[in-house]
């Protein structure tokens, strides 16, 4: 609630109204009256905000929704009806998906022929020879036979390798042993020769006193 009686004059001044000769007196009053100075500041802000807004032309006529000009075209009505219907959208999506899958399947390049590996060939042959008439027991028996055969082969191969390694090690050991025995025999010969030599020298040894006599 304003207490100053000249607030209205301040508002007119802010809006650019009022007599021009009175503008100096109003400016002097706003400088001395705190309330009017605040009002003048607020009014200036308001006018500045109003001036910053774009100018809009006032419509020249008023139209109604029921006018022909607002009636949508048939195409617009079709699309509006299409987008507003979940069932139609779902159906259209299913159709698009079907077309995409069919196109992808028809345009898939043919794979290069690959020579099947022996294992794959065996598997294929096994699958080809498989007949539903084979019982579970028969399958188990065949698997057991195959496993037993494979184990036997591996054991035979291991036995052969072990035997060869043992024979090689035995031959090497025999050779080393023989060489060592020859060396020992030679060493014994040398020792015997040394012993004979020292025995001969000792038997011929004469003490200095005895030699001098």
């Amino acid at each position, binding site marked *: 609630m304003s207490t100053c009686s000249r607030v209205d004059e301040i508002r007119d001044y802010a809006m650019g109204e009022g007599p021009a000769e009175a503008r100096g007196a109003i400016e002097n009053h706003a400088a001395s009256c705190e309330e009017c100075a605040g009002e003048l500041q607020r009014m200036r802000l308001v006018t500045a905000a109003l001036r910053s807004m774009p100018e809009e032309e006032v419509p020249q006529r008023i139209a109604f929704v029921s006018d022909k000009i607002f009636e949508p075209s048939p195409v617009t009505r079709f699309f509006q009806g299409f987008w507003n219907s979940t069932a139609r959208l779902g159906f259209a999506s299913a159709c698009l998906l079907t077309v995409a899958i069919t196109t992808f399947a028809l345009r898939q390049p043919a794979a290069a022929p690959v020579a099947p590996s022996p294992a794959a060939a065996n598997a294929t042959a096994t699958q080809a020879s498989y007949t539903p008439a084979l019982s579970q027991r028969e399958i188990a028996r065949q698997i057991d036979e195959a496993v037993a055969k494979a184990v036997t082969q591996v054991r035979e191969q291991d036995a052969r390798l072990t035997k060869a390694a043992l024979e090689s090690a035995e031959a090497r050991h025999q050779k080393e042993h023989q060489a060592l025995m020859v060396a020992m025999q030679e060493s014994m010969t*040398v020792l015997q*020769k040394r012993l004979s030599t020292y025995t001969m020298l000792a038997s011929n040894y004469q003490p200095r006193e005895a030699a001098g006599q």
Partner: protein
Amino acid sequence: MRAMGWAGKSLLLVAAATACFASAESRLSRASIAAMEDAINAKFRVNSPDPYDLLGTARGTYLEGYGVVFTVELQLVNVSPPSPFNPKISDAEVAQIRDRKLRKLPQLKEAMRSLMATAGSSLANLPPEEKISMEAILWSYSWESTRGMPHRVFLSVQKQKLLEALAAHTDPALVIEEQER
């Protein structure tokens, strides 16, 4: 003839036997040969940083009409043979032993020549036209590398030539014949 009887026959036999033994007596005494054998043994038993391994004492033999021959068996260097604790001698060790022996071989020949010079001076009863020979039999193990290594070194010289070389203070190696087998 009958008068000679058993006593005469016996005397005749004794005289014939004495004549035979007297003609077979060696000119070179066993004592002089044994002295030379001792000198050879002492030469190869000498303690040195790299001694010989004497495996057979020196043996001397006098051959009538040829001269005197001395033989000795030895190893040029002392070698540790393989044992159960060291069963394998490496190739590097084998090569090292061979190098040591090859370096020692000239020293052996020089020692033999020195001994032959001693024999020429000491064997006074040896006729000058006869020879002084010395053979060193070199022992080596079967695992050793004997490539370029002789098994025997044989030196021989006529006594007269040797004495002439010694008197002329020339190198005895010039007159001593050398064979390696």
